[in-house]
């Protein structure tokens, strides 16, 4: 999280840390991302967090044995204080496109249910009509994560750090939703083959400075519904431009969750 601040314990009770350690490769392949708790058994995240790292473009989930999910976590140095779960099932959206990150959404079923409490609570999915319209431009949302908080660190340094989380304390930042056309224009006018589809939306500041970044993937972009006062996951941290996170006119791109409510219910059940 660039330009953010420390979250208080219990402020993001849905925030999950998803750690993937692919021991079938040499050297071990290890990375992490975030997710959002939906119920006592299911976590929502981005498909690219759980896609097996392969040179070809096939989309295959990592083996569920290689995944650990932490809930109620605040300081990654104190994982023992958190709840951790192994994984029963991974569902990547069948339409996930590794080229443009369209349909970048996935579900993880925990092998054992978790009990709710002040530090573990699910986020709401868009449910009411207004929420199902998706995030309105210029609406402010929050997103949290243990990803890069120092924009100057290089990718190599990240990898050589063994993918430890890049921020010990959970960070969060407030970001406005960017009008779709503006974001689409800003990406598609560049070189490179970017496409901001209808299943995505952007958030961030034109002048940069605040953003999500590497390691925040899969975390929920939440917006408080003014009517019900409940926090609703409208986005999932998905991708951004090659420039450093928080650069000027480089918006973060988020999976538009309101397009996948039926897909989620189809796999999770109406619970």
């Amino acid at each position, binding site marked *: 999280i660039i330009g953010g601040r420390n979250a*208080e*314990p*219990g*402020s*993001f*009770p*849905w925030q999950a840390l998803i750690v993937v350690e692919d021991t079938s490769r040499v050297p071990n392949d290890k990375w992490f991302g975030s997710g959002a708790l*939906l*119920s*006592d058994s299911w976590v929502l995240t981005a498909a690219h967090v759980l896609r097996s790292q392969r040179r070809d473009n096939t989309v295959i989930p990592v083996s569920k044995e290689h995944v650990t999910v932490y809930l109620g976590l605040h300081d990654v140095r104190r994982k023992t204080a958190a709840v951790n779960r192994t994984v029963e099932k991974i569902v990547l959206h069948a339409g996930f496109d590794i080229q443009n990150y369209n349909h970048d959404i996935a579900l993880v079923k925990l092998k054992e249910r978790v*009990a*709710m*409490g*002040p*530090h*573990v*609570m*699910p*986020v*709401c*999915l868009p449910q009411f009509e207004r929420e199902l319209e998706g995030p309105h431009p210029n609406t*402010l949302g*929050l997103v949290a994560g243990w990803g890069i908080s120092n924009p100057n660190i290089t990718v190599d340094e990240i990898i050589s750090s063994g993918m430890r989380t890049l921020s010990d304390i959970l960070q969060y930042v*407030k970001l406005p939703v960017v009008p779709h056309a503006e974001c689409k224009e800003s990406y598609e006018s560049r070189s490179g083959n970017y496409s901001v589809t209808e299943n995505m939306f952007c958030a961030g500041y034109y002048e940069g400075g605040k953003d999500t970044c590497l390691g925040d993937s899969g975390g929920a972009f*939440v917006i*408080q*519904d003014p009517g019900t*006062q*409940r*926090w*609703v996951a409208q986005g999932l941290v998905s991708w951004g431009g090659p420039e450093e996170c928080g650069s000027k006119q480089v918006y973060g791109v988020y999976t538009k969750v309101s397009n996948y409510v039926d897909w989620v219910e189809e796999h999770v059940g109406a*619970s």
Partner: protein
Amino acid sequence: DAVDLTDMFGEIQSPNFPDSYPSDSEVTWNISVPDGFRIKLYFMHFDLESSYLCEYDYVKIEAEDQVLATFCGRETTDTEQAPGQQAILSPGSYMGLTFRSDFSNEERFTGFEAHYTAVDVDECLEKSDEELACDHYCHNYIGGYYCSCRFGYILHSDNRTCKVECSDNLFTQRSGVITSADFPNPYPKSSDCLYRVELEDGFFITLQFEDSIDIEDHPEVSCPYDYIKIKAGPLEFGPFCGEKSPGRIETQTNSVQILFHSDNSGENRGWKLSYTATGNLCPLVQPPINGKIDPLQARYTFKDQVVISCNPGYKVLKGDVESDTFQIECLKDGTWSNKVPICKMADCRAPAELEHGFITFTSRSNLTTYRSAIRYSCQRPYYHMAPNVTGMYTCDENGVWRSEELGTKLPSCQPVCGRPARPLPGIIKR
């Protein structure tokens, strides 16, 4: 001389016919045809000396033991008879014809020429004698006849009377009606009907005949033709016949055999009886508190059963088994099969736990019996009730916790979403 004729037809001529017949002669022809036929005789020519009452020459026609006709002369006069065109029929299958001439025949009478033929007897029309007529249906055919019976009857070995198969009538109900076959139409002949009433040991059967019966009898001899007899254990009642009803018979046993015999004649309406069975009396039973007994009767006898049930909200408790009803039976020794059980208030017992929820009893002593109430709640603020109901459950009359909204289904405590215990920095309008 005698000539035997056994063909189905033939002709008979006087001696020397067509010349004049000799004097001083007597010839007899014995005509026999099979049973079922009779003989028709007729004359094509008749010319005998006439005399007063045919005392000189004559033709005499006989059958079995009767003279059918005596003819002489040529024409019938007031003192002698000639056959003319008439045919003579024998009553049965035999006819005898005798020709006799005396010592003189001056006028050279030419005698006679006769023919005979067998003709079928239609026994169906002629069997007026009840002893021989068909009982139900008669079917004539050339040379004979046969009998058949109405539906449900079978032809007796006498090929005439119709009987019924009635040797296996078994009655096992506690009451019933028994009648002779086809009552009140005449009962079948040549039948030996057996009616058995077999009840469980402990019952005593009572027979009650209808006021009038109609069984063929005899003025002097006791029931020589048809009769009804009753065997009940060591006792034997009857034989009964005539029109005087045997009335009420207390058999003092649970097994009775009624034998009804009919011979091959007579047309009598028969008989009808009803039977009932009672057993030893059992003492009256009182319904349990908060319960009732069904049926309520002034008396209970062997095999009578009563069902004990409880008012709503109570269950029958026998031993430590609860049930909705309990049945007891009056035994043959006049005791009940079981004591009357008690009615225990329905108890829903401890309500099912709700994961991530808890239960509040509305009564101080956490009662779980009929009409007690509880309320389910969820561990707020992290869980909420789904569906959104009051969570109130009442112990119903069947001992089941029941909610007005969900019936017997339980709600669930689902995680509350999107409401962090520690408020998030909301959108603060500047």
